[in-house]
């Protein structure tokens, strides 16, 4: 393969500020910092409303990633760490958030965040992270009722998909769309393991399969792997997906097809957020949940 120096796995980082809020007037300014194994997000909420967020890549140090995500989120807002009333860390590196007041598991935070983002009708949350995959059953308040997790195997995680984007030389954000450019759905890649699936994909390419067909076969294998986890727990509607893979319709649509349940559209439950065109990033669910817990804990402490 020709080394073009291009990093096909690299997904775009982003940040956003809500122009309708003056944070200085807010009673509670809380932060949620989600340090995942692959990506990190920071969300700042003012009185429980989304004020700003960042979505960035985790570096080699969790504390540095937490600071980096925070700084990126508050960039241009004038907020500094001492303006935050309560910070909750979550995710794989949650205990390494240097300015965190509390660490809460990503299961609880994703449940809370998905409930807030997608609405109270959500009963099952699928979170596909960079190095894990979780299914969480929640109630109408976003409280966890049960969960299942795979964090042992890279098949069915974001990292597996990054590996394939790199192998095929296709930018990660185009994978989903390109995987549908096939006249008929090929059988899924038969290897469960990402390492073996790579070998299998190389053989398929050598055998004359076009890239889009190989991608379709891999997206479908990934959907099956995720489905095998979902299949162990009774998936109830509404079914919401969080994490980076939510942006890959090639996997999402195939999971919905296997489940025979449509996943929620990636749209804010809050009507005013939709009307004002706030960006909906399914990767920030954990950080949103953490910031909401932050508000709850700050209020409790003040009483």
């Amino acid at each position: 393969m020709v080394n073009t120096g291009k990093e096909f796995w690299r997904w775009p980082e982003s940040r956003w500020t809500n122009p309708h809020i003056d944070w200085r007037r807010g009673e509670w300014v809380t932060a949620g910092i989600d340090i995942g194994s692959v990506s990190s997000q920071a969300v700042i909420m003012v009185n429980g409303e989304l004020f700003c967020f960042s979505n960035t890549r985790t570096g080699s140090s969790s504390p540095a990633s937490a600071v980096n995500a925070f700084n990126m989120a508050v960039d241009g807002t004038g907020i500094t760490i001492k303006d935050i009333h309560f910070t909750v860390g979550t995710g794989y590196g949650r205990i390494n958030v240097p300015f965190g007041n509390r660490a809460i598991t990503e299961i609880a935070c994703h449940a809370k965040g998905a409930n807030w983002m997608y609405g109270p009708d959500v009963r099952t949350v699928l979170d596909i992270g960079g190095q894990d995959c979780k299914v969480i059953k929640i109630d109408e308040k976003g409280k966890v009722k049960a969960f299942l997790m795979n964090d042992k195997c890279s098949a069915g995680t974001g990292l597996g998909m990054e590996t394939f984007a790199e192998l095929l030389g296709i930018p990660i954000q185009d994978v989903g769309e390109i995987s549908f450019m096939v006249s008929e759905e090929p059988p899924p890649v038969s290897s469960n393991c990402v390492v073996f699936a790579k070998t299998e994909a190389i053989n398929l390419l050598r055998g004359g399969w076009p890239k889009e067909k190989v991608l379709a076969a891999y997206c479908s294998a990934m959907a099956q792997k995720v489905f095998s986890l979902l299949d162990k727990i009774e998936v109830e509607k509404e079914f919401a997906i969080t994490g980076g893979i939510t942006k890959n319709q090639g996997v999402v649509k195939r999971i919905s097809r296997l489940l025979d349940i449509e996943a929620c559209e990636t749209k804010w439950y809050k009507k005013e957020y939709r009307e004002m065109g706030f960006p909906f990033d399914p990767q920030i669910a954990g950080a949103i949940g953490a910031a909401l817990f932050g508000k709850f804990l700050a209020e409790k402490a003040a009483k």
Partner: protein
Amino acid sequence: MITSGIDIGAKNIKAVIIKDGNVVSKAVLTAGIDEIDTANKVFDEALRSAALKRDDISRVFATGVGRHNCGFAHEEITEVGAAAKGISYLMPDVRTVIDIGAEEGRAIRIDNKGDVVDFAINERCAAGAGIFVETMARMLETRIEDIADLYDRSTRDINIGAHCVVFAEFELVHLIHSQISKPDIVRAIITAMADRVVPIIKRIGVEHKVAVIGGVALNRGFIKAIENELNVEISVPTDPQFVSAIGAAIVAAE
């Protein structure tokens, strides 16, 4: 009678020639893209070193994952059957044989005739196979032959959480940047790999004596890690990567 066993593995192809119950030659080549072509070359090489011609060989049996791609074999036998017969020929006291190849691993319990009593296979996860060590050796810029020595020089037991080759690659980057020494990283990798193999062995139960075969058996560190985890002494035959080819040649002679 002169027979031959050809073991077409995921990475290497091995050929063995047996004459009247004695191994008279062995050959090995990397499988490459064209397995049939390589299998022919390996067979020819084994013939050459024994000064024999194809016509001298009564029967050729093929085994290994690519056994269907051996154009000239008279019959095929499973990897499990070949490993069992091979180790029983080399080490008759062995009752449990662990065969770890490039892309799969299996544990087999056998009786005193080399017949299979029970077995368990991992062919779904790369973390329990030779490709794990190879991938890590490449990242550490270390030759696979040097892995065992590096393991011996380790002074610290570092635990890597990863049970997956893809995750381990990422963890390795962190270890390298944290200035962890190469020997300690190697030990962590080998231990992680042993952690993936041990449950397969436990599934069938360990009966003495225990042998490890396949290319990974050349890795002393791996043997030590398995010995520690199972608390048993492990034997490794000479040229452990040829055991299944020997088994195939033995069955061909029966």
